[in-house]
C-alpha cells in the first residue's frame, strides 16, 4: 500500500523535475531551432487532418443534438449560440488535446522509448548533448505553439460543421446562426479557450517525454510506455479542464 504511494509520489516528483528542466532550457543555450521546426511540422501540421475531422463532426453532432433539444422549448434559433459556447469553452480544447494525446503523446513516448532502450539517449549524453535540451524542450515548445493554433482551427471548423447541420436540418438562416454565435461569446470564453490548450500542451508533450525517457524492458517496455502516456495524458486533460473551467466560472460576470 505504502510502496504503491511511494512509487506515485516519486513519479510525480520526477515529472516536476523534468518539467522544470525543460522550462529552464527554453532560456539556456544551446537552442535547437531546427528541431523545434521539425517538431512543429510533425506535431502540428501532421495533426491538422485529424483535428479538422474531429472538430467538424463534433460541431455537427452538437448542432444536431442541441437543435433537437432546443426545439422542445421553441429555441432552435439559439443552436449557434450553444454550439459556439460549448465548442470554444470546452469541447474544442479538450477534444483537440485528447486527439493530440492519442497521436503525439504516444508518438513521442514510443520514439523516445525506442531511443532509451537502444542506448541512444545514453549515447547522446556520452557525446556531449543534454537529452532534455535536445529532445524534450523542442517538443514542449512546438506543442505550446501548435496546440492553441490547432484548437482555434478546431473551434472554427466545428462551428462551420454546426452551421451546415443547423442550416440544412433545422433551417436556421446563416445570419441568425453566426450572429447568435458571435454575440454569445465573451472574452472570458475566448480566454478560457486559449488558456486550456496552452496548459494541455505541457501535458501532451511532457507526459509523452516522461514515459519515453523512463522506458525499461526492451520493445515490450516501449509498448507499455506508449499506452501509459496516452492514458495518463488523456485523464490529466479531463481533470485539468474541470479545474481550469472552475476558475473561469468563478471569474465570469454573473
Amino acid at each position, binding site marked *: 500500500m505504502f510502496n504503491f504511494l511511494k512509487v506515485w509520489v516519486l513519479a510525480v516528483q520526477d515529472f516536476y523535475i523534468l518539467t522544470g528542466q525543460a522550462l529552464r532550457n527554453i532560456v539556456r543555450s544551446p537552442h535547437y531551432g531546427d528541431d523545434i521546426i521539425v517538431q512543429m511540422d510533425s506535431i502540428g501540421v501532421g495533426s491538422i487532418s485529424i483535428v479538422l475531422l474531429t472538430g467538424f463532426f463534433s460541431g455537427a453532432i452538437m448542432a444536431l443534438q442541441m437543435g433537437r433539444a432546443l426545439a422542445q422549448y421553441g429555441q432552435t434559433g439559439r443552436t449557434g449560440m450553444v454550439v459556439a459556447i460549448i465548442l470554444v469553452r470546452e469541447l474544442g480544447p479538450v477534444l483537440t488535446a485528447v486527439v493530440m494525446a492519442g497521436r503525439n503523446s504516444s508518438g513521442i513516448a514510443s520514439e523516445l522509448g*525506442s*531511443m532509451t532502450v*537502444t*542506448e*541512444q539517449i*545514453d*549515447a*547522446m*549524453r*556520452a*557525446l*556531449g*548533448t*543534454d537529452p532534455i535540451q535536445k529532445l524534450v524542450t523542442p517538443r514542449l515548445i512546438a506543442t505550446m505553439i501548435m496546440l492553441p493554433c490547432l484548437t482555434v482551427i478546431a473551434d472554427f471548423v466545428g462551428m462551420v460543421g454546426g452551421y451546415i447541420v443547423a442550416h440544412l436540418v433545422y433551417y436556421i438562416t446563416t445570419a441568425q446562426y453566426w450572429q447568435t454565435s458571435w454575440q454569445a461569446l465573451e472574452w472570458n470564453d475566448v480566454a478560457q479557450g486559449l488558456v486550456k490548450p496552452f496548459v494541455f500542451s505541457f501535458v501532451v508533450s511532457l507526459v509523452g517525454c516522461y514515459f519515453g525517457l523512463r522506458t525499461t524492458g526492451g520493445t515490450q517496455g516501449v509498448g507499455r510506455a506508449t499506452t501509459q502516456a496516452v492514458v495518463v495524458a488523456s485523464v490529466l486533460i479531463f481533470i485539468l479542464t474541470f479545474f481550469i473551467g472552475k476558475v473561469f466560472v468563478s471569474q465570469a460576470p454573473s
Partner: protein
Amino acid sequence: MPAEDPPVIRFENVTVSFDGVPALKDVSFEVGKAQTRILLGAAGSGKTVILKTAMGLIRPESGRVFLFGQDITGLPEKELFAVRSKLGMLFQESALFDSLNIEQNVAYPLLNQKAVQCQPGEVRPRVKEALEFVELGQTLKKFPSELSGGMRRRAAIARAVVTKPPLLLYDSPTAGLDPITAYTIMALIIKERDLDNTTALVVTYRYQDGNLVANFRYNPDNGELAGAPAQTQPQTRFMVMQEGRLVFEGSQDELEASRDSYVQKFVRHTD
C-alpha cells in the same frame, strides 16, 4: 623527473544499485595509460554498469570514480560533458542515431562536444578519415537501418574514435556477430590501440577477444594482425566480474592458471 601519470580510470570501492538491487559491489581497480583492460563476465554480472559508471552515465551509490586523475563522482552533468569528450564509447547495440545518416552520426561528437573545438571546415574530412579507418568510406549518406549489424558496429567505432580520444570504452563489441565479422571488429580495436596508443576498457564475454588483444598487433604494412613477440606484447590485463563483484584481476597467464571454477569457465569455454 616528471611526475608519474595518474591512472586513466580508477574505481575506489564503487557500489551501484538499481531500486535497491546491487549491480556493482565494492569494485576497485585502476587502468594505467596505454593499457588495455579486458573485462570478462556472464550476462548481468555488471560489466556494462562499470562502463557507464566510468563515464558518469550512472552515479555510484558509494565509492569514487576518477578519470584522468579527476574525481567525477559528484560532477554535475554539464561539467561531465568536458570529461566525456576525452573518451569514446562503443555501445553494445551501436546506439547510432536512427534519424541521422552515417556522416551526421560520425560528425555528431565533433559538432556537439564543445571541448573538441572542431572548425566547421574540418568536420567532413575528419568524418571521412574516421569512416575510412573502419573501411566504410562509401556509406556516408546511408542511414543506420540500411547497414548490416557488423557495419553498424564499425560505424559506431568510427563515431567513437573520430575525436581521437585518449580513452576508449567498448561494450561487448562482438556480441551477436558472426565469427568473421567479430574478428574484423577486434582487428579494428587492435588497430586503433596500436596506431593511436589509446587506453581501452573492453567488455566481452568471449575469451578469444581478449586473447587477440593480448597477443596480436596491427601490422600497418599489410593491414593485418600479426602475433606480437613476447617483449613487445601490449599491456593487457584481465578482470572477471561475477554478480557485481570483481572476482579476478591479473595477467593472461594468471587468468589461465586460475583455479576458480567461475573464472575457469571463461578460459576453458573457448578451447
